[in-house]
């Protein structure tokens, strides 16, 4: 019985031979990662302020189901995952106005979606690498048409978010007063769920459905640890998400391991560092309060 060959293991995880060639080969993936980081980091701020982390997970499982069905029936993985996540987002949006209802609806939908996805994959006669990729991410699969669709959807999400940014913030943090001031809280909630559905669908294609949280939640959660400025937090969140994704892809290039462990590890490390910064600030009594002369 052979134990693990550590040097072999290391070269599976990190392998930088022919790195220059690989970067050129995989530049689509790197661009995809950067774009995804911007989308995930930006919408993550609202995922946090609307307390929707669990919803993201639920939508991503349905997106996985859609993608698998798309693969099985030949509709296309991108189309399938889009349909799956938008349907899930709308169901959660319409039925889950209260956070209690929402959590139970998600908990009901999620295993169903996962089961449906596994069924479709089990019936799919093609290569198994594709199947696994939907769950844990597939770095090599970003060809030109796919990159274009990813960028197009991302533009829709970012522009949509910027348009509704202020009323959505109002509705997310202060729903009663927002409604009193004439903000259409319900409409915004549905608009947000649509944008979230789109963002999840594009993320699933790169990092896989199990790990979507690492770009839609972790970077924003990390940013919120170190700032509460409504401008600094989204900027930091985007920076963290782009760092995790692009950094993860660069490290993953030569290895034979899927991309997701790299991305999730970087994203987690950033979160831990932000927590340490926050704890040390709290210890030194930095709160932002100022004495009024």
């Amino acid at each position, binding site marked *: 019985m052979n134990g693990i060959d550590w040097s072999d293991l290391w070269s599976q995880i990190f392998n930088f031979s022919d790195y220059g060639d690989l970067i050129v080969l995989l530049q689509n993936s790197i661009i995809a990662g950067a774009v995804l980081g911007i989308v995930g980091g930006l919408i993550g*701020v609202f995922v*946090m*302020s*609307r*307390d929707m982390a669990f919803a993201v997970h639920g939508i991503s499982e349905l997106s996985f189901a859609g993608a698998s069905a798309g693969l099985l029936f030949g509709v296309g993985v991108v189309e399938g995952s889009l349909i799956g996540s938008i349907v899930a987002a709308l169901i959660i949006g319409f039925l889950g106005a209260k956070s209690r209802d929402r959590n139970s609806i998600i908990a009901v939908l999620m295993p169903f979606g996962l089961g449906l996805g596994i069924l479709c994959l089990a019936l799919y006669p093609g290569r198994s690498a594709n199947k696994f990729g939907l769950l844990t991410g597939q770095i090599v699969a970003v060809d030109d048409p796919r990159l274009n669709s990813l960028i197009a959807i991302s533009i829709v999400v970012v522009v949509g978010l*910027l*348009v*509704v*940014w*202020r*009323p959505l*913030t*109002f509705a*997310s*943090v*202060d729903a*009663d*007063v*927002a*409604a*009193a*001031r*004439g*903000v259409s809280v319900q409409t915004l909630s549905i608009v947000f769920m649509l944008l979230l559905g789109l963002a999840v669908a594009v993320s699933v294609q790169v990092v896989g459905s199990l790990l979507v949280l690492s770009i839609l939640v972790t970077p924003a959660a990390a*940013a*919120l640890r170190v*700032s*509460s*400025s*409504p*401008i*600094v*937090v*989204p900027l930091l969140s985007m920076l963290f998400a782009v760092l995790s994704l692009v950094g993860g892809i660069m490290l993953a290039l030569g290895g034979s391991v899927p991309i997701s462990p790299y991305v999730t590890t970087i994203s987690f490390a950033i979160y831990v560092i932000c927590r340490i910064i926050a704890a040390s600030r709290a210890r030194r009594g930095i*709160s*932002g*309060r*100022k*004495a*009024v002369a």
Partner: protein
Amino acid sequence: MKIFGAKSARADAEAAPPPRNAPRHVVLRVRGGALQFGDRRLWHDLDFDVRSGEFIAVLGANGSGKSSLLKVILGQQHLSAGTMTFEGSPVTRGNRRIGYIPQQKLADEGAPLRGRDLVALGVDGHRFGFPLPRAARRREVDELLASVGASEYANVAVSTLSGGEQQRLRVGQSLAGNPRLLLCDEPLLSLDLAHQRAVSELIDTHRRQRDLGVLFVTHDINPILDMVDRVLYLAGGSFRIGTPDEVLRSEVLSELYGSPVDVIRTRGRVIVVGVPDAGHGHDGHHHHDDDPGGNGPIGSTAQGGGPRS
């Protein structure tokens, strides 16, 4: 504690005193107002005016439709019968001339929101687009923060502020857009006595300075007893309106409730004993389950005698 700071006193001195005996114009007018959910009638034939500079407390048992009255004024709920006009026109949704202060809820840690941001939402939170920093907006927010004595924690995350500090910010937020009418829905709930006093004094100061009409829904009139001009008491589908001395009397409330109710006045406080349970639970939107049981919606012995100034 910074609560009774010099800030509000200074604001007092700066304010041009409104002409107290000038004829006051009607800000809000209700005629024959009725509100009904299915076969449950909350109130009917409601007639009253709120004049500028007038502070009216809205009292009544749980489920008497106090919060629903505010929802009607905010245009979120329609009257089943009657009319309601604000500054001469029928009430509409999202009127910027009506400020709203809800009860204090501890803000969530998940949102990037500092004191100044909460106030800024009152200034332009309803507009589309991304809030790019602008000098004019910043100045307006700074002025509002100063006017409620909240400059000290302008840049502190709202989730780390105390309930009283959060309510100060809410007062500042509600004053954005220079409203004519302020609607307060249990703004003192879950605050301690000192903060109750500070927040209600702040509201009182601003209604005098700005000649604001104030409708203040509360289950405990004591923190605001010496500030209110009139009391609107909703009970048993009906109502009484008048000065606290006219309305808060045993015979008036007994008639309104249709059962014997005692109003006890002691050490400057009003305590209502023997209010029958509204029976139908809460009024559909708000759940004031922290109303100390047994005693009435006005005062409660449980809260003891607060410091009076």
